[in-house]
């Protein structure tokens, strides 16, 4: 009885749309969600042979390959920094964590219009001009691909604080005795202690952080959509599908086919990832 409303919501808002989407993917469905012209697997073939959709998968791969390790390193670095602070600890934790509360859309607009505006009074260009470097049009062109700098920095600013908190919690759980024993055994403070004690002790947290970062990368939409409006580059799969189905093209058949292809791909990658990282296996099975 308690689960009834949630189950109803799940059916109405999740399962029926997924089913409807699967049905639409076999129809010619331009500007309509109640199509009549059955086209078989034509929409799937179109999406798989459409360069834009395949390029979007490449864009996601580049994005994940940059943003996952960089965020991991930055959030761990911040956690180590804040963990060792002797004063104003709460202040600095708050400063690094607060951006988490900012929306991706608002942050993207600040990045686009204030910091990385292509004109001479954008913050980044003002700094460059001080050093005698000409202004850069950060988002105008993919050559050189400065847009990655804008996209990665906005995401770093927004999410590093959250992962810093996870690492901070893990750091606080490392027993002090380990460091004391290492000191007695002659381990030097700094890199040696970090390499042989801190990092191995953070392994479980690191695995969880990497998984969360990958999931977040899969869901990337807002910053790409707002920073790279109507470009043909820098479109991750969700933006590409949005433009195909819900954007100005209104092609629900191809959009649905692309969504199902992407779902299958995410399932396959998740299973592979679980296998590689050993997530979900018991200690004894490792």
């Amino acid at each position, binding site marked *: 009885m308690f689960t009834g409303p949630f189950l109803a919501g799940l059916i109405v808002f999740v399962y029926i749309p997924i089913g409807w989407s699967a049905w639409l993917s076999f129809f010619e469905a331009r*500007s309509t969600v109640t199509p009549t012209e059955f086209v078989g697997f034509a929409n799937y073939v179109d999406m798989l042979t459409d360069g834009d959709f395949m390029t979007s998968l490449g864009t996601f791969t580049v994005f994940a390959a940059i943003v996952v390790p960089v965020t991991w390193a930055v959030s761990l670095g911040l956690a180590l920094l804040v963990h060792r602070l002797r004063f104003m600890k709460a202040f600095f934790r708050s400063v690094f964590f607060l951006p988490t509360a900012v929306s991706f859309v608002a942050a993207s607009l600040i990045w686009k219009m204030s910091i990385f505006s292509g004109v001479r009074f954008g913050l980044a260009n003002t700094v460059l001009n001080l050093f005698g470097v*000409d202004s850069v049009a950060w988002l105008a062109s993919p050559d050189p691909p400065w847009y990655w700098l804008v996209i990665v920095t906005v995401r770093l600013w927004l999410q590093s604080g959250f992962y810093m908190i996870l690492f901070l919690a893990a750091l606080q759980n490392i027993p002090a005795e380990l460091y004391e024993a290492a000191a007695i055994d002659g381990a030097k403070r700094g890199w040696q202690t970090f390499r042989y004690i801190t990092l191995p002790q953070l392994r479980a947290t690191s695995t969880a952080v990497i998984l969360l970062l990958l999931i977040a990368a899969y869901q990337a939409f807002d910053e790409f959509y707002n920073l790279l409006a109507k470009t043909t580059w820098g479109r991750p799969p969700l933006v590409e599908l949005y433009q195909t189905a*819900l954007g*100005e093209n209104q092609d629900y058949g191809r959009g649905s086919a692309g969504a199902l292809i992407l779902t299958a791909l995410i399932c396959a990658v998740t299973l592979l990832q679980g296998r590689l990282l050993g997530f979900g296996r018991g200690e004894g099975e490792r």
Partner: protein
Amino acid sequence: MRASNQWDRRSVLRAAGGIAALGALAACGSNNGRSGGSGSGKELTQYFHAYGEPGTQEALKRYAKGFGKADVRTQWITGDNFENKLFSALLSSDAPDVFEFHPQVHMVRAGQILPLDDIIEPVKADFNAADIASHTVDGKVWGVRMIDDPQFFFYRKSLLEKAGIAPPQTLDELIEAAAKLTTDKVKGVFLGNKLHAIVRPLIWASGADTLDEKNRIAYHTDQVAANLGKLRTLFTSGHQLLDAPSDFWDPSALVQGLTAIQWCGMWAMPAMQQALGDDLGVFPFPSAAPGAEPAVYNGGWSMFVSSKAKDKDLAKEYVKWLWIDQKQHQEDWALSYGFHIPPRTSIANSAEKLKSGLPAEGVRLFNEFGHFDNPMWTQAMIVAHEDVMADCVRSDMAPEAALDKADKKVEDELRKLS
């Protein structure tokens, strides 16, 4: 022991519930665009994109309040994705009753809009004939034009004089002018951040067209490909303003001194004149092929009635009331905020503000070089062409390859619509 003033979970939930209820009550009292005065109990919803000129939103709500037969709710859609929101809404059960857009055949084919011949017929002769033609599909008129918006280049006279150059007559001259006008503070020309607005003017000025009279591709010519290559040269020259804080539709780039020449619409003329006084001139997209005419895109907005309108007759009656009968509102809408050309000849002829000076020059360019919307040129085709600009001008794809890519999408679209 817990302090007496400490919040427990239940009191927090109770407070949250109270705030939610207050929020709902507050929403009832907010200014949501309904007139609330007719008492008829009937409601209409109209969708508008957010116009940049101050006072436009209030004006629309004020007009709607005067319609006594229904409360008219206005959805003022901000941002850069009016088309996305409108198209999605038109498929849902919550479609707007009336909305503004451009005449495009796919809405007719998909049965999304109603023909409006019955309300237009009595005044058809008073409308700009080209506007009527652009709204006619299968012999029926599907929308009522509200405003015509010519788009052309605006320039700072003083900067061109200082550089010793006249307004460009050809695309080559425009590129040369951009180089001469560029300094460490000012870029020569601004074509918009995405370059989308100049796609069609470039095609027309290249002596081509989007589609021919038999609805076949007419834009894919050697001259268009060559001109796309020229624009790539301009894009990489450092003489074109890139990544401005706002796009072509906003006069800021010219007004703030970021550029000497800017592509924009006549709607921004009053704001530019206010900021720059007489230091302002206009010229069309210059000829981009031997013997080809310069080009002006006559954009604009029109009202359509959704076929999903809950009360179709009432929705049509509202459109007739506001955009055919209420001439004082139409004149106010066209001339009191930005400058637009009224599509009704009788209103345009009496518009004093458009009879002299720079506005009159804008009207001349509109009449002499203007190209109106082709209803067969749909949003999917527009997007395919805008991608060409991104592909070959902004990212160095070969123009031929970019045009081939657009051909595939346009052919696909034409096949579906035939």
